[in-house]
């Protein structure tokens, strides 16, 4: 396994299964932990485990003045961090290319899917708006970072409760009412599904870190509940035909339904608090 990893994998793939016992189209067990049990100081948080890959997302809401050219829009700032504790390939220091590319990907998903409409974050036109800082930190990297991050972000945002803010007409200052909290308006629920391409032909779902290293390419598809594509992310790698891509998309749509059920179940279980 250490001397000839590719050959070891090929023998399994010929039998249409993988070393950890999964089918080619099977996902690892997904567990989600939302709310006060994850980060108590954040306004919303979630911990997602996709097999061994562990990602935690914390959302903090702060007040700021909106930009001059978009006076009725708030801000969402996602930031993905891959600290050196999650895998030996990541060194400490400024964010590497993978972390930055992942941050850009998450920002694109939020923008493309219109998950949170920036106009909803505005409190007073031109004067005050919310800024949501979403920090996504990987605690254990075992492949499939993008799927876990998108899932953690979605779960954390569903957990966020924003206090009611009113602007006092006489003094012009803002008053924060911590007793009255409203949940965020989330319009769409995007879910990411990642595939790894082997030897230009085989497609496997939810790759582990070992499989990602051996793969000749990766594809990530983000769908929302209407079956629309929010993002198709295929950063190079072996060429795929249109038909193969279509196959990935259909599988992504099925995965979306599973994940949505899981999130709804978890949220229902914590609301009676």
């Amino acid at each position, binding site marked *: 396994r250490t001397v000839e990893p590719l050959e070891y994998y090929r023998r399994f793939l010929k039998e249409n299964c993988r070393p950890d016992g999964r089918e080619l189209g099977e996902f690892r067990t997904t567990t989600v932990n939302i709310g006060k049990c994850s980060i108590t100081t954040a306004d919303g948080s979630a911990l997602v485990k996709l097999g061994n890959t562990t990602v935690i997302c914390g959302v903090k809401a702060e007040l700021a003045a909106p930009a001059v050219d978009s006076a009725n829009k708030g801000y969402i700032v996602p930031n993905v961090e891959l600290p050196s504790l999650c895998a030996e390939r990541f060194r400490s220091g400024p964010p590497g*290319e*993978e972390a*930055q*590319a992942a*941050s*850009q*990907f998450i*920002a*694109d998903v939020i*923008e*493309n*899917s*219109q998950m949170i409409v920036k106009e909803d974050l505005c409190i007073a036109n031109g004067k005050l708006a919310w800024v949501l800082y979403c920090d996504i930190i990987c605690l254990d990297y075992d492949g499939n970072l993008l799927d876990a991050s998108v899932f953690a972000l979605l779960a954390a945002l569903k957990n966020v409760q924003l206090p009611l803010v009113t602007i006092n007409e006489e003094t012009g200052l803002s008053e924060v009412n911590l007793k009255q909290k409203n949940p965020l308006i989330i319009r769409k629920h995007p879910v990411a599904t990642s595939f790894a391409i082997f030897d230009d032909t085989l497609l496997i779902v939810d790759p582990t870190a070992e499989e990602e290293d051996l793969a*000749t*390419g990766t*594809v990530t598809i983000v769908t*929302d509940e209407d*079956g*629309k*594509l*929010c*993002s*198709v*992310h*295929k*950063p*190079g*790698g*072996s*060429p*795929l*035909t*249109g038909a193969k*891509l*279509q196959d990935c*998309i259909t599988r992504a749509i099925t995965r979306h339904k599973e994940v949505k059920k899981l999130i709804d179940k978890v949220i229902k279980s914590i609301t009676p608090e």
Partner: protein
Amino acid sequence: PSVCPGDTSVLAGLYGPAEAKISKELPDRAALEVLLRPKVGLPGVLERSREQLLRQTCEAVVLGVLHPRTAISLVLQVLSDAGSLLSCCLNAACMALLDAGLPLAALFCGVTCALQPDGTILLDPTARQEQDARAVLTFAIASSDRKVLMATTKGSCSVEEMQQCLAVSQRAADTIFQFYRDSVRRRYSK
């Protein structure tokens, strides 16, 4: 070489295969590095993600196993941006690879399509058209069999629309490959 479709212009410079730093060298293949410099400002997170897209696309076509423990650096400078920037960078990168004479498994070209709110598909959109569009899709198409090497989307679209854009891009790829042939012919005919 610099590639300019319309008003978007990107200058590409390729250096390699050259001696690699010990920390960066790979024992069995060439290490590819892409640097994208925007027209104004310092490279940020957006440039990093684009660099990753370009790097992995190039890694898929360059036969790195013929030059182990070397480094190939591709530097792209954006001279002007009037829409379809990513596909312009892809085309510039491929022409640079061709010009340098590196061994390639296939050529690739970048095509951008914009999906208008009324459903029409526009190829090579301008910056204005990109902003008004419902979705902008960029594909890198390989020359050998018109397969998709790289795909990125901005905005959301339905699955059928994506397939339509893909088909349109594959047809448009033929024109771009013809352009490659003409430019290379011009360069070497003297």
